[in-house]
């Protein structure tokens, strides 16, 4: 184990996978000479050269399509989106080409591509640069969607994503790149896609969260502990396929659920998890599932308004108190 930042963990994953498999290459805007808009690819050009660390002009749809074609021809591209906001320009390539190729071709052409970069709320970047993008992708059969919360997850999940034979959307976070944590240096360390993790054991309520929201949920759990409320924290890590088994198991133990997500709540991850819990564990619930979500508004610039947009620790604490006070059995 070594202590390193989330950014360094991603860099390590890329480096290890590129050393392991000559078919892995990185392509995107500013990934080479500039060493990444967020420095995730720092040092890679030097080690692997311009054939494998490919700087592109600003053409998201074009270079994502290039990645898809290269993947169909047997390579393993890692496409960097400078931020996921710009992935919308490549949405057709991702949804109509990458996700469906294997199906449309009757199993002849799979697309082993990773599309990665930061997404989610960032500091005062306003409506076009600060938003949760996972919703656009996890609806699509054929895509896998990963949101790694910790440096360890960032490494283990990115390595699995690169080795996966399917298109994987891997959304990091600008606000987490400097977060430090323990990371195994073993180049064979992998975290399987589709497996949730219980980050904290508890008995009274299950709180489901990922990325920045998980860190706020951890703070909320500490505070609630003092009030005698024992919170279990579940991090799905992969949003599609979703590990509902781990979630349901936790619900059967605590009988109360709060889902936290940064994005606008309408038809969000919270809705999906609430539906799954209701379908599979209705009789186990002592209170209705609570959703703590970003406000149903675009992201404002002004600092005070921005605070009103994204869930805080206090919102989570309040929601947990509500479900715990609700009288069930």
């Amino acid at each position, binding site marked *: 184990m070594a202590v390193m930042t989330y950014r360094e963990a991603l860099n390590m994953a890329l480096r290890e996978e590129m050393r392991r498999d000559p078919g892995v290459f990185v392509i995107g805007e500013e990934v080479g000479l500039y060493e990444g808009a967020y420095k995730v690819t720092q040092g890679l050009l030097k080690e692997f050269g311009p054939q494998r660390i490919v700087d592109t002009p600003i053409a998201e749809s074009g270079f994502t399509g290039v990645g898809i074609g290269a993947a169909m021809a047997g390579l393993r591209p890692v496409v960097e989106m400078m931020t996921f906001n710009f992935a919308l320009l490549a949405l057709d390539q991702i949804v109509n*080409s990458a996700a469906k190729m294997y199906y*449309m071709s009757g199993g002849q052409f799979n697309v082993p591509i990773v599309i990665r970069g930061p997404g989610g709320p960032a500091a005062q970047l306003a409506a076009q640069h600060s938003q949760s993008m996972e919703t656009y992708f996890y609806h699509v059969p054929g895509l896998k969607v990963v949101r790694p919360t910790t440096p360890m997850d960032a490494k283990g999940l990115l390595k699995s994503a690169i080795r996966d034979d399917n298109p994987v959307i891997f959304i990091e976070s600008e606000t987490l790149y400097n977060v430090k944590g323990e990371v195994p240096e073993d180049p064979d360390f992998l975290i399987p896609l589709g497996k949730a993790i219980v980050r904290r054991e508890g008995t009274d309520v299950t709180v489901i969260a990922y990325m920045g929201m998980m860190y706020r949920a951890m703070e909320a759990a500490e505070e609630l502990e003092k009030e005698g409320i024992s919170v279990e924290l579940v991090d799905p890590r992969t949003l599609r396929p979703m590990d509902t088994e781990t979630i349901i198991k936790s619900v059967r133990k605590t009988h109360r659920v709060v889902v936290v997500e940064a994005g606008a709540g309408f038809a969000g991850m919270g809705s999906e998890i609430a539906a799954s819990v209701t379908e599979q564990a209705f009789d186990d619930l002592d209170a209705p599932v609570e959703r703590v979500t970003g406000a149903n508004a675009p992201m404002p610039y002004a600092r005070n308004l921005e605070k009103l947009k994204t869930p805080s620790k206090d919102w989570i604490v309040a929601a947990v108190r509500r479900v715990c006070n609700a009288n069930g059995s």
Partner: protein
Amino acid sequence: MAKTLTRSAASPSGFGVDAEAAKRLLSDMLLIRRFEEKAAEGYALGKIGGFLHLYIGEEAVAVGATSVLRPDDYAISAYREHGHCLAKGSDPKRVMAELYGRRDGLSKGKGGSMHLFDRSTNFLGGHAIVGAHLPIAVGVAFAIKYRGGDQVIVCYFGDGAVPEGEFHEAMNLAALWKLPVIFLCENNRYAMGTSVERALAQTEIWKFGQTYGIPAEKVDGMDVLAVRDAVGRAVARTREQKIPALIEVDTYRYRGHSMRDPAGAVYRTKEEVEREKLRDPIVLFRDKIITAGLLSEGDIRAVEKDMNDRIDEAVTFADASPEPPGEWLFTDIYKEA
């Protein structure tokens, strides 16, 4: 970057191919023509559903281009791709079965007319979002170069893709990175009902090559030998120098945009269609072969019969192939490790 920008007039001098090769070109065109006629019948009978876009009138393009490719070269196309797929060597039985939505189809009945793929011939689809497969073709060329191979990819697309951003992104990236892709624009003068004049501020599509420094030319797409010649030169240059090419092919579709636009009379005149039929690529080539004394009328009738028989077999095969089993709805979504 590009030094040559030519606008070749018509077919090259002399015949250029021997009797054997001429017979092959003719039979491939006849096979596609017959396939498409039978597909139209299948559609009328309700055996084929959805969108069905026929290639009738454009056969010389796929056949001329494919005739200069190696089996390990790649081809990729849009949704009017039956001809490209058959020319590349797919079994007409399995192509027809795909149109019928049956389990023996190339894509197990899951793709249909617009999504033909064949790994065994390096035919990479079958793409129905206009313009989207151009960057994908560039990616395949990227992979060829990455591995140090000497294959090329031919990317067929319509005039309708030219106003799309992806055409320009793909041309730029291919030229910037010097990749072995041949962009082959089948200019049949219409994108559904929109003529090139109503879609492009600059209607000479081959000239976009100039913008990106890509060697480009325009060729008569009703002359299979002219197509063969132009694509042959482009393939040789691309294979050798690892640079892209753009070829604009002047062609025409005799049927409507799809079976839902059978007449196509609103946006073009009957006279125009009749006039274009005078340059039917199959009729022209047949006459040429006979005049040159390469094949006799009898030989040609035998070829025709042969192709008709093969397509009849394809129809019988497709009709006999079972529907895909219900479980297949959920297979081929994710590839298991």
